[in-house]
């Protein structure tokens, strides 16, 4: 078997037709070669798990409702047994901070694992590549097809691919919207052509974004649009796992016959088969060193190990390792950088768990009557409010309402406890009365307190303004 120098199908030989005028620079279309191996299997698993969750979760039920549903019209988020309200915004903020800090920590430890395995851009691009391979065949077949003039066959193949892509994108849009509108209802609406205008819009918008990003833009998103790609290097150090080519072992590169001892010909282990370039989804040559385009997918590691095996050489000419390991120094996992990231992550995660555990199962919003600031009646100043009483518990509950803050403050409008259904909101119009002489200021603070009738430890206080004459 003779391993030859770069074949004409390597991406280094562009013809005029290859050059596609895309949004960014004159882009050569990248045709990633299919790859098998440890990292490829890992990536396939990640794609199946993540997309399985995305397309499958909306169909999962919990207590007679959709298990994960972001019910924006009702302003409630359901995640399995938990119900979240706008009042729980702090939790969402903490969750996002945990996401960012985890990204920092994992980047410091293992490089761009997010990019290679978990980023929606990678995951959906992978699926679009599968569909492309299914219809258009291998890398060589795809390139031959694109270079051939238009014919009935080419039209048929391209149309089939587009049909697959567009249907998949629409399904993706549907799955996205079904996190917000119950999937069963949305499915029914699609089948009966009864989709609402906003649902239609978001299905098309998300579907179009999927098609555009995964089918058309692909690696350009990572190269030109991704903010993380630009700052991830700040988290890197010599102990971070990176995809790297062992230059000392590989160079000088060159073709040779199997069985020849490269040393007698003054060659290193790299046979210059350019497989690593052909499999790269971002079209780079890892042998030039670490580049910002590298998304750590490790496809080149897999393919190079195959080649090394065929040649009877040791694996890991290209490997997923650290700079220190390459230099023959020990790699430290525990180091100031990872300790600091982990410590901050730990603090935020503890805070998140604390807030989650100490959530009060009730809520109270106070809305002032907008029509008049105050009114005088029988020598007293009156303010009118609407109390929105939220029962965040999973059973019906009665609450007692009280108000305090001004001497001699009277609460009128509520007779006895307010009963609210599980997960429900009850509007309670109330009037506060106080004598003008008791008001400390034209605008005074008062507090409304809500207390569960069956458990006085369940209580919630909300501040409000009581307005009087100046």
């Amino acid at each position, binding site marked *: 078997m003779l391993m030859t120098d770069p074949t004409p199908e390597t991406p280094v030989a562009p013809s005029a037709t290859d050059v596609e005028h895309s*949004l960014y620079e004159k882009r050569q279309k990248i045709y990633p070669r299919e790859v098998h191996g440890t990292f490829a299997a890992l990536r396939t698993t990640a794609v199946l798990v993540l997309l399985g969750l995305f397309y499958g979760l909306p169909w999962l039920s919990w207590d007679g409702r959709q298990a994960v549903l972001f019910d*924006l019209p009702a*302003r409630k988020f359901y995640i399995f047994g938990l119900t979240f309200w706008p009042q729980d*915004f702090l939790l969402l903020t903490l969750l996002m901070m945990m996401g960012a800090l985890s990204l920092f920590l994992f980047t410091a430890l293992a490089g761009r694992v997010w990019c290679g395995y978990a980023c929606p851009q990678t995951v959906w691009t992978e699926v679009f590549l599968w569909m492309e391979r299914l219809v258009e065949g291998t890398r060589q077949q795809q390139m031959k097809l694109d270079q051939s003039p238009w014919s009935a066959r080419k039209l048929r193949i391209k149309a089939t691919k587009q049909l697959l892509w567009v249907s998949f994108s629409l399904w993706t849009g549907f799955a996205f919207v079904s996190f917000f509108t119950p999937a069963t209802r949305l499915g029914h609406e699609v089948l009966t052509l009864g989709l609402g205008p*906003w649902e239609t*819009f978001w299905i098309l918008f998300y579907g179009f974004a999927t098609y555009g990003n995964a089918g058309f833009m692909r690696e350009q998103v990572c190269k*030109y*649009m991704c903010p993380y790609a630009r700052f991830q290097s700040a988290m890197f150090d010599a102990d971070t796992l990176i995809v790297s080519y062992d230059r000392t072992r590989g160079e000088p590169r060159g073709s040779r016959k199997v069985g020849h001892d490269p040393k007698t010909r003054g060659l290193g282990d790299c046979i210059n088969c350019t497989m690593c370039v052909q499999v790269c989804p971002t079209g780079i040559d890892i042998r030039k060193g670490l580049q910002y385009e590298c998304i750590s997918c490790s496809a080149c590691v897999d393919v190079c190990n195959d080649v090394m095996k065929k040649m009877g050489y040791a694996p890991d000419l290209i490997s997923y390792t650290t700079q220190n390991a390459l230099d023959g120094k020990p790699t430290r996992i525990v180091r100031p950088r990872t300790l600091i990231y982990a410590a901050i992550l730990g603090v935020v995660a503890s805070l998140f768990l604390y807030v989650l555990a100490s959530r009060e199962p009730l809520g109270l919003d106070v809305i002032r009557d*907008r029509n008049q600031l105050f009114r005088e009646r029988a020598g007293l100043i009156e303010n009118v409010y609407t109390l929105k009483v939220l029962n965040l518990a999973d059973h019906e509950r009665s609450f007692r309402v009280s108000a305090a803050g001004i001497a001699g403050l009277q609460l009128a409008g509520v007779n006895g406890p307010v009963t609210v259904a599980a997960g429900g909101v009850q509007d309670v119009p109330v009037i506060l009365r106080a004598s003008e002489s008791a008001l400390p200021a034209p605008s005074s603070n008062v507090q409304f307190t809500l207390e569960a009738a069956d458990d006085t430890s369940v209580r919630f206080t909300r501040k409000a303004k009581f307005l009087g004459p100046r």
Partner: protein
Amino acid sequence: MLSLFVPTKWMPVPARFGAVLWLSFLLAVVATGVFFSTIDPDVLQPCVPEFPEVSRTAAYTIGFFLFWLLTAASGVLAVAFTYPPASEHAYETPDVDD
């Protein structure tokens, strides 16, 4: 504003707008999330009587696009101001290709 349309080596002109639209999209998503989780559109509506009464979903969508318009406008202006005035380019040959 003409300087916005002067090509440079790193990014062709359409890409510049693409970058602005994309990054402002990200920030608009965050802004929409923060805004509407704090403020219920149904409560906001009576404060602005000129605004038509629409469903919450519609309000979220309109709000998102207004935020996107705002963040994109600020992005476009920022990009415009990072380039020298167009007249200075009169002496330069636009450098599009490597």
